[in-house]
């Protein structure tokens, strides 16, 4: 009996024509909304409920945090430029923009670490009150997500230097990019509902002290 017929001509075809991994990443990001949503819900439910200080308006520095928010936003720009580069086949620019993204992400993280240590020195820790508990866990997990992102970016840079990220493999950069942008949009939400909303209270406290 001759075995003449090949099973099917394209073993990698998908029903929708879409890449499995890209679909997985979008499904994951949809699910991660529920993760951060639950942490944000906890923060907002407990907002104003701390039995003792320090309170947010005593420690937040809005201008400082605005700069770090800006840094993270710009890192999304460099990320998308990195993707554009590899989609055009420009491996050198890919690496430049990826490194820039990783640097900006690291600056953000450095800013977070500085802010956290400052808060601790001002008496806000996980244990102090509800504000400390909810703030550090929410922003801490966001920071952990950013850290994982930086590792992924640096891995891509290394892989690119090893010649493993070619134009036809740009999907890998795209996937890391999607994750990175998501981490940025979570910060957009956190910056607004955690930091910005405290500005009136910060101003009121300053006025009360007579600044």
């Amino acid at each position: 009996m001759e075995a003449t017929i090949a099973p099917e001509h394209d073993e990698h075809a998908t029903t929708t024509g879409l890449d499995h991994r890209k679909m997985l990443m979008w499904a994951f990001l949809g699910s991660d909304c529920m993760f951060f949503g639950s942490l944000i819900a906890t923060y907002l439910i407990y907002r104003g409920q701390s039995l003792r200080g320090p309170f947010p308006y005593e420690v937040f520095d809005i201008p400082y945090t605005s700069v770090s928010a800006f840094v993270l936003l710009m890192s999304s720009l460099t990320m998308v430029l990195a993707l554009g580069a590899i989609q055009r086949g420009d491996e050198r620019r890919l690496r430049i923009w990826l490194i820039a993204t990783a640097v900006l992400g690291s600056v953000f993280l450095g800013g977070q670490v500085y802010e956290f240590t400052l808060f601790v020195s001002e008496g806000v820790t996980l244990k102090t009150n509800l504000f400390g508990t909810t703030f550090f866990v929410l922003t801490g997990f966001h920071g952990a997500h950013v850290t994982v992102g930086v590792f992924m970016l640096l891995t891509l840079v290394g892989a690119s230097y090893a010649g493993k990220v070619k134009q036809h493999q740009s999907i890998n950069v795209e996937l890391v990019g999607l994750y990175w942008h998501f981490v940025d949009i979570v910060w957009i939400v956190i910056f607004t509902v955690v930091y910005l909303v405290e500005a009136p209270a910060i101003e009121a406290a300053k006025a009360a002290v007579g600044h």
Partner: protein
Amino acid sequence: MSHANEHDSSHPSPSRYVAIAGILAVITAIEVWIVYQDYLNDVMIPLLILLSIGKFALVVMYFMHLKFDSKLFSILFVGGLLLTIGVLTALFALFSRVYFA
């Protein structure tokens, strides 16, 4: 690998992305400006929500390319997002400290 169909429609150019990044920076600056204006305190929250939604949408639609990609990806992501917003709203209502008679 079957990723060929993913760039059907127009694809923003690098300068377009820089422009969007500029808009994001401007919106952020406006948000920071708003919170320091006493006379806007009453409308601060709705304004911030709107502006943040704007930033969120710009990043998702353009940087994450969702506007130009398959609707299926939008369903997967927006589905999770809507569910999150729904559950959060319900939780806020349940923990609301405005008591009914």
